[in-house]
């Protein structure tokens, strides 16, 4: 078990936990200042997120893509890359899933599997371009992935309007055989929109764990992420490694897109702007310390806050924006590593590079 500790060390757990508490405290402060009752609001939030089967199902549905985009960002981070393009890779994933779901006719299980696979491949290919530019020309991935986001958005919109519909704002519903919904599952959760994407997300989290920490290939990816010079010295193929990391990351993002399209919405529509689930992945990964278990937990938290926050508006009359502030505050606290400095002051130690 010591090995697991290394992946997700104690101080990372503490940092995250304390940041969440502090973030919620900031939210509470805002509510007080604005004349709301924070206890009532938070109470309503959690109550409305998990206690009813229907709400629980909807919360799980909200969590699903967050896990996947969190994994996408986290895997890239672990291998030394900052993938801001998760949003775009996810859009392309949705697009590919929609095309397979609309234009192909396949037997039920096979059809959805094909659509999911297409989304994964599409996401990976979308990430291949910035990966290649980084590996070969040294172009920084932050710049290229951001630009790829815009290209993805406009490409998707253009295809929706031209090829995938007759000039309408959205496509038809995908064929039933391609859907990730499963009636039995929906019924268990009171006809909520929960779908099988959660299984994909959990498998992906497990996959990331096995890949990075159990396989020789993951050893390479991590080594290159930490120290490309030493990896080159050790005979690893640094360029190939960067490229693969980027593509695996894009694959997770593509899967997130598949879940949204094949599970939640069922059709593709014109987007006015970015949905933001890809960007939320950055927050999830950061809070989850880029480790699969951490990312799962962080996605759960953000999912609960997002879905519960929506209901909180009605129950306690608190605007949803408060929840976004809580998000932002949590991330700020993680990024500033405030808890670490609190601890180091308390225990009188600080981590420093060897001199």
């Amino acid at each position, binding site marked *: 078990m010591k*090995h697991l500790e290394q992946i997700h060390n104690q101080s990372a757990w503490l940092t995250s936990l304390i940041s969440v508490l502090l973030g919620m405290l900031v939210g509470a402060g805002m509510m007080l200042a604005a004349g709301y009752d924070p206890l009532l609001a938070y109470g309503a939030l959690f109550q409305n997120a998990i206690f009813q089967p229907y709400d629980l199902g909807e919360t799980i549905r909200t969590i699903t893509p967050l896990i996947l985009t969190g994994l996408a960002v986290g895997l890239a981070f672990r291998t030394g890359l900052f993938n801001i393009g998760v949003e775009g890779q996810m859009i392309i994933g949705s697009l590919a899933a929609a095309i397979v779901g609309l234009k192909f006719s396949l037997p039920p299980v096979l059809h959805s599997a094909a659509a999911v696979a297409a989304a994964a491949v599409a996401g990976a290919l979308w990430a291949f371009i910035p990966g290649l530019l980084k590996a070969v020309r040294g172009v920084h991935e932050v710049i290229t992935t951001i630009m790829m986001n815009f290209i993805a958005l406009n490409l998707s919109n253009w295809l929706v309007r031209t090829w995938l519909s007759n000039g309408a704002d959205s496509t038809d519903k995908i064929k039933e055989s391609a859907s990730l919904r499963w009636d039995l599952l929906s019924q268990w959760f009171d006809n909520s929109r929960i779908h099988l994407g959660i299984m994909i997300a959990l498998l992906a989290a497990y996959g990331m764990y096995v890949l990075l920490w159990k396989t020789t290939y993951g050893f390479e990816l991590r080594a290159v992420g930490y120290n490309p010079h030493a990896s080159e010295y050790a005979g690893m193929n640094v360029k190939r490694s960067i490229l693969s990391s980027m593509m695996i990351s894009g694959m997770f993002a593509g899967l997130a897109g598949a879940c949204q399209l094949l599970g939640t919405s069922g059709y593709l529509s014109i987007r006015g702007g970015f949905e933001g689930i890809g960007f939320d992945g950055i927050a999830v990964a950061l809070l989850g310390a880029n480790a699969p278990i951490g990312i799962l937990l962080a996605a759960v938290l953000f999912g609960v806050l997002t879905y519960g926050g929506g209901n909180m508006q009605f129950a306690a009359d608190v605007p949803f924006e408060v929840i976004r502030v809580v998000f932002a505050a949590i991330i700020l606290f993680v990024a500033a590593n405030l808890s670490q400095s609190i601890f180091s002051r308390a225990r009188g130690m600080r981590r420093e590079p060897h*001199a």
Partner: protein
Amino acid sequence: MNAVEMRGITKRFPGIVANDQVHLSVNQGEIHALLGENGAGKSTLMNILFGLYQPDEGEIFIREKPVKITGPTKAAALGIGMVHQHFMLVEPFTVTENIILGAEPTSRGCIDRHRAEREVREISEKYGLRVDPTARIRDISVGMQQRVEILKTLYRGAEVLIFDEPTAVLSPQEIDELMEIMENLVREGKTIIFITHKLKEIMRICDTVTVIRRGKTIGSTSVKGTSEQELASMMVGREVSFSVNKQESRPGKTVLKVQSLTVKDSRGVEAVRGLDLEVRAGEIVGLAGVDGNGQSELLEAITGLRKAHAGDILLNGEAITRLQPRAIARRGVGHIPEDRQKRGLVLDFSIGENMVLQTYDQTPFAKGFLLRYPEIFRHAKRLIEDFDVRTPDEQTHARALSGGNQQKAIIAREVDRDPDLLIAAQPTRGLDVGAIEFIHRRLVEQRDKGKAVLLMSLELDEILKLSDRIAVMYGGRIAGWLNPKTTNEEEIGLLMAGGKVGEEVAQG
């Protein structure tokens, strides 16, 4: 008067007591050496004095007044400055910008560049630290960068300067210059705490020396009344032999053959120009030369890290010139790299993972695609014991090891792979005398097993002691071959500077 006094300092890290009731008192205006084995706790103690770590127990007095040093800013305010072994400079910035960073002189809210440059020039002239204030860090040598670090501390008004192994990264010439600078500093009333593993340096410029071993103070003594031998045994706790015992070499077949090799450096300039070199089984060839005469590029070309522009490299008769580093390593080349933190280790990996950095995908460390961590850690455990790497355990991150122990870990890994050709670049840089003795013995052992060893070192001592033949590099070529039995430092020095020497041993 005591400039610094540390009493009963204790500092624990997970699994290890780095400092155990350490005492240190440093007189005003002296150069005080801190001597101890790798991992003895010297850097830790100095990091405490500089406010980077907080001690678990103990008191600190600066100019006889009790103080609490809560951070580097507090340390600076108390007049303590530290020059770290690994520099902390901003590469694209100029010398002046680096020096004033965080303490910029301003006029009307803007940085007063002229004043800054003037001040920097003034300080550097006062202490004989010649640097060009307008040069960019990435364009100047390591020795110059170190001067910038020294200037940084002086600019912030340091009265006590801590130097953590400053000479480990310097060439002999640069070391001489640094010693002069240190003498100037003391003349101007500064106090210096100086960490080094080189006993000669201590004998040369220090007044007092404090020895620590395994986190405990062994004692303090005046340098005048002691000898290198005595210091060495005080530090290691046993007699240390400075000479290497080795039999006559019995060279066998040629293992490495380099033919009219040309290699370009990162700027595209030819660093190695038509070089020929041969290393045979069962011999140690020493590669001497002033830093920057193409040694690094030559070794990088042999190991595949740098492309050869022209010429051939043969290993056991087969061309490896255009192979990838991995293929070269697998054909039997081991490489102890010059820069341990950049090339040699992944600092955020455990020792265990670092020990299989090249072999992680081979049996027994992997089965198919899957890593076998129990095997990896068992392997590391054995190497840690065999090579006396001081670490709490094999799962500790390489970052947490002391500098010398990081080096030992790399040597352990490379020697253990038992390569036909072992390339050792500055293998004992930063090692204590006990460890150096040990590593030297291992290198000779490799030779006696019939392996070829190519040793690159800036230390002439080391070259003379270990080599069976000496190749002196100058201007990208082998300027001459010398026989270590009949040559001396002067002769090598002459060749290194581009001169000619009468008697040469024929190659081969």
